[in-house]
Structures are given as structure tokens and as C-alpha cells.
């Protein structure tokens, strides 16, 4: 009872603070909006013409209006990425655990998704996607958009605009923030597969909060934050604008939809967490058979569907780049399913449903950084290679690592993410059917240096993400262990987390 009371007080306080902050944000909205229009240096986000402001009396050419097709497309994509987490990822993971832990997996995914969404609005978006200050600006953004402050003045109907990858094409910044919120939330949910069937619910929530803040936000900022194409209006500005972008963006790392930010980041966190938590009781001795592969298949299929929103949506507009990313996401996944299935058939004797579903996810992961950065040949190659390599990731490599990564988050997401990130550097080459990349944002002209140079850049980005995520995960879990402890009790683990942590059972016949 006492516990309940303190929990209640904390919740009320939290919401009180949140509400006060949000109200403040609304009050400041109008001033921030007009401020953004005049002072370029204060522009908090990607966008240059940050406002579609009637009051600013800008000429129509200076304030691009979002295309309704782009807006509709991005709204749908955002909802599709939500579908990737709840229910798709939850079902994919849920089917793989024992029936006594089904609800705990669903619950962890559901609540993590919600928690991160709230944190995203409070401070996540601002820290990831606004311009930082001082030496840290390469690594983390600023506080201009706390509580989405200044992103819109709903009373006057003025919405700030976010840049895309095309000059003069914008979408609502609020829409961009919503789209990116789903990425942050999904990434945090991915980690849960590694710690399934044994981690305390309170520990999950605390860990996710810390990891989201200190690993997801900086890496998202490092890879994805830049000043947007419209800012590059004159060659004299290039150096100054580049210096404001994220560290890995400046380096030239290519990550279309989140191979580094999402999959390597989450996969490494999963592996480190699996080590720190220790193995499940009975691991390697008792059978830990997946309790419902039908749900796993359903989850994998919904992931494939939702991933079109994730990858093609990362183009930020409904154009060439989105179409290319869509087809690549389609094709690479199919290649990976075939690769995994036939390899398993040859090596292990039988082609399994779980193998096909795992292959699909491996292909999706690997094509993520490459989606809009490679052509059809790249999709064939990346999907097929990812299918083979990730099969090794969950068998041979898993045995070498000796960690109980329950649902193979590392073997599929980190390994697939690394394969995809490196091969993006290969197949982006126009010689291999790729589009190359923009070498000069002032003229928006594309070019290419060399495969070896780009792969080296990709490898450095991968290395930085691996180390960053690994260290943050270890420190965060150490703190969580001190504060609430990491694992449920041995008896609770044997009985199952559904009953002992959540007081309910998944199946009551």
C-alpha cells in the first residue's frame, strides 16, 4: 500500500511537471515561431524556412508549402512504424518465448513504446534533432524544442516546417517529430528480446529511460542531424553548416533509415544486456521451445509490412527515393528469406518456419541503411548475404559469444545492421547500380568517391556506434542493478513472469 502511494505521488508529480512544461511550451510557441523565421542561427532544426508563417510576410517562394501527398504519405508511414512495434515486434518476440512469459514480453514492448514516446516529446526530439552548442554540438542537440516547444502554434494554425532531402520540399516539423518518435520507441523495444524471460519490469523501464537518453539520442543526432538542403544556398556557407551537423554525418556515413542508429545500436545493447543479466535458469539444460511460431510468423509479416513505412518513409517525401527504398525493402527481404531457408535446409536438414521468419527480419535489418542508397543489384546482394550471415549470427556466432541473448537480437539486428551498413558503402557506387550520394548540397549534385573510402567511413561509424552503445548499456545496467536490481527472483522466473510480474496468464482455456 505504501509502495502504491509513493508510486501515485511520483506519477502525479511527473505529470504535473510535464503539464507545466508543456503549457510553458505553448506560451512560447508563437514567439519561437516568429523568431525562427528571422534568425537563422537560432533555427532549432533541420529546416531553414522553418515557418509557414503568414505573419512573417515572407514571399511565397521563400516559405515552401508542404505537398499534401508528402504529408499524407508521412502520416501513414508514421502509423506503419507504430505497427512494427505494437503488435508486430511484440508478437514476433512473444511467439518465441515460453507461454508462461508471453504477456511479460507483450507488456514490456507495449509500455516501453509508450514510455519512449512520452520521453521523446518531453526532451528526446529536442536533444536529437536540434542544433547543439559548443563542442558537444556534434554529439547532442539543444533544448529549443523541449516539449516540442515552438513546433507549432495550434491557436493560429502556424506550423514550423522541417526540411527533407530535396531543396524546397518540406513537411510539418511536428510530423517529422512524430515519425522520428516511432523510430526511437521501436529501437528501445528491440533490445527487450535479449533480456526476455528474466528481467524485472521496473528494471526494464529504468534501463530503457537511461539507454534512450544516453545512447539513442546522441547516436541519432550524430548520424541524422544536419541543417537541411535549403540551408546550403551559397558555397560560402557550406563549411559553417557542415560543422553544425552530427559527428557521423560530417564524416560522411550513410544510414538511410537506421542501420546504425536503430539496429546496431539496439543489437549491441542487447548483447551487453544479455551478458550482464546472465543466462536464464535452465538455459542449455531445459528445453526453451518457442511457444507459438504462428504468432512469430504473423509478427514477422507485419514487420515486413510496417518496414515499408520505416524505410520508404525515411525518404521524408513521396518521390524517387521513397520508391527506390520501397522496392529495395521488398526485394532484399525476399532474398534473405530464400537465403536463410535454403542454407538451413542444406546445413541443418530441414527448412523451418522460424528460419524463414528470421530471414525476413535479417533482410529487413540489412537493407535499412541501404534502402535509398543502393539500386536493385544492391538489394539482391545485401538481402542474400544478410540471410546467410545472420543464420551464422544465431548459430555459430551465438555459440562463440556464450551469452543467453534470448531472442537473438544481436545475431539478427547487430549482425544484420553491420552487414547492411558496410555493404551500403559498396553498393551505393554508381558502378554497382547505386545512386551515389550528394557531394555538393549547394547544387545538389551527386557523385561518388570510391568503394574502399566509403566502406572505411561506414566501418568507422559502425565501430563508434558499437562502442558507444556497449559502454552506455553497461553503465546504465550497472546503475539499474544498484537501484532496483536486474532480475526477478529465481522462484518467480521458474513460475513465469506473466503471473509473478503482471498477475495474469496469457492463455486460459
Amino acid at each position, binding site marked *: 500500500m505504501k509502495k502504491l502511494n509513493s508510486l501515485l505521488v511520483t506519477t502525479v508529480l511527473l505529470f504535473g511537471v510535464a503539464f507545466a512544461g508543456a503549457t510553458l511550451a505553448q506560451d512560447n510557441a508563437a514567439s519561437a515561431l516568429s523568431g525562427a523565421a528571422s534568425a537563422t542561427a537560432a533555427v532549432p532544426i533541420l529546416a531553414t524556412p522553418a515557418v509557414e508563417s503568414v505573419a512573417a510576410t515572407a514571399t511565397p517562394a521563400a516559405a515552401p508549402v508542404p505537398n499534401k501527398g508528402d504529408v499524407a504519405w508521412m502520416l501513414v508511414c508514421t502509423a506503419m512504424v507504430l505497427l512494427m512495434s505494437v503488435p508486430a515486434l511484440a508478437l514476433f518476440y512473444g511467439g518465441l518465448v515460453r507461454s508462461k512469459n508471453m504477456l511479460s514480453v507483450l507488456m514490456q514492448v507495449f509500455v516501453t513504446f509508450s514510455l519512449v514516446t512520452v520521453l521523446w516529446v518531453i526532451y528526446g526530439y529536442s536533444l536529437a534533432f536540434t542544433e547543439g552548442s559548443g563542442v558537444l554540438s556534434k554529439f547532442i542537440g539543444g533544448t529549443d524544442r523541449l516539449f516540442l516547444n515552438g513546433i507549432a502554434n495550434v491557436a493560429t494554425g502556424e506550423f514550423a516546417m522541417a526540411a527533407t532531402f530535396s531543396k524546397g520540399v518540406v513537411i510539418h516539423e511536428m510530423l517529422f517529430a512524430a515519425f522520428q518518435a516511432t523510430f526511437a520507441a521501436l529501437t528501445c523495444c528491440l533490445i527487450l528480446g535479449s533480456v526476455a524471460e528474466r528481467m524485472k519490469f521496473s528494471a526494464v523501464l529504468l534501463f530503457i529511460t537511461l539507454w534512450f537518453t544516453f545512447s539513442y539520442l546522441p547516436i541519432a543526432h550524430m548520424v541524422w542531424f544536419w541543417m537541411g538542403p535549403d540551408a546550403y544556398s551559397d558555397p560560402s556557407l557550406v563549411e559553417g553548416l557542415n560543422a553544425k551537423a552530427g559527428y557521423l554525418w560530417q564524416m560522411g556515413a550513410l544510414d538511410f533509415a537506421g542501420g546504425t542508429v536503430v539496429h546496431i545500436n539496439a543489437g549491441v545493447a542487447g548483447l551487453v544486456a544479455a551478458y550482464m543479466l546472465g543466462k536464464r535458469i535452465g538455459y542449455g539444460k531445459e*528445453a*526453451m*521451445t*518457442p511457444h507459438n511460431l504462428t504468432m512469430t510468423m504473423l509478427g514477422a509479416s507485419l514487420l515486413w509490412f510496417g518496414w515499408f513505412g520505416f524505410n520508404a518513409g525515411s525518404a521524408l517525401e513521396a518521390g524517387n527515393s521513397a520508391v527506390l527504398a520501397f522496392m529495395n525493402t521488398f526485394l532484399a527481404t525476399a532474398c534473405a528469406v530464400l537465403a536463410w531457408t535454403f542454407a538451413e535446409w542444406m546445413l*541443418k*536438414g*530441414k527448412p*523451418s518456419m*522460424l*528460419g524463414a521468419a*528470421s530471414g525476413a527480419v535479417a533482410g529487413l535489418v540489412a537493407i535499412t541503411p541501404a534502402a535509398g542508397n543502393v539500386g536493385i543489384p544492391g538489394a539482391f546482394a545485401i538481402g542474400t548475404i544478410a540471410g546467410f550471415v545472420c543464420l551464422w549470427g*544465431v*548459430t*555459430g556466432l*551465438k*555459440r562463440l559469444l556464450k551469452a543467453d541473448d534470448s531472442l*537473438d537480437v544481436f*545475431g539478427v539486428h547487430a549482425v544484420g545492421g553491420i552487414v547492411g551498413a558496410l555493404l551500403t558503402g559498396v553498393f551505393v557506387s554508381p558502378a554497382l547500380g547505386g545512386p551515389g550520394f550528394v557531394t555538393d548540397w549547394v547544387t545538389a549534385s551527386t557523385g561518388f568517391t570510391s568503394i574502399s573510402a566509403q566502406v572505411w567511413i561506414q566501418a568507422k561509424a559502425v565501430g563508434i556506434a558499437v562502442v558507444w552503445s556497449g559502454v552506455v548499456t553497461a553503465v546504465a545496467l550497472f546503475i539499474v542493478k544498484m537501484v532496483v536490481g536486474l532480475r526477478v527472483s529465481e522462484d518467480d522466473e521458474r513460475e513465469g513472469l506473466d503471473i509473478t510480474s503482471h498477475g495474469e496468464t496469457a492463455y486460459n482455456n
Partner: protein
Amino acid sequence: MKMVTAVIKPFKLDEVREALSAIGVQGITVTEVKGFGRQKGHTELYRGAEYVVDFLPKVKIEAAIKDDMLDQVMEAIEKSANTGKIGDGKIFVFDLQHVVRIRTGETGADAL
């Protein structure tokens, strides 16, 4: 009176029931069970994890019968449950001491 217990392959249940009905057995009790015999188990592979499944699903049927029906019942089960492959199961026969039909209170052979 005899109690005949047979452990058979699950998909043979309908044939066995039909065969027993045909020779006039009035009722049987069926239970889904698991066990192992000479058939042994099989292995299941989930990504990198290989599990040996020792216990295979079988169906256990129990029939209480009069002594004079024993040979017929044994033959009916043996024929209907037979596939000729390993794992067809076994028939066990016990002496049955007493039977009561709960509704009427009849006892012994009358209650069968």
C-alpha cells in the same frame, strides 16, 4: 471382468473406436498422454538451439469389458491400431475387481 488399456498412435483413435463399437464395446475412456518406447523421441531445431523431444504424444484408451470379450477386444485393437511401423503402441490387460454404475447403482457385469 477385465480392464483393457491400450496406448496407441493418436491418428488411429477413430479406427480403434469404430472397431470396438463394431464388436459391441459399450464405452471407452480416452486420455491424451506422452511417453517413450522403442520409437524414441526426435530433435527439434530452433535457430541455434537443438532440443531432444523424448516424449511423444500418444492416446491412451481404457475399456472395461466382460471376460468373454477379451480376445475379440484385443484383436480389434491390434488390427485397427496397426501401421506396422515402430511406435504403434501396446495393450495392457488387468483383472477388474468391481464396477458400479453411478446412476442406477448396478454393480459387477451388469454395470458394464
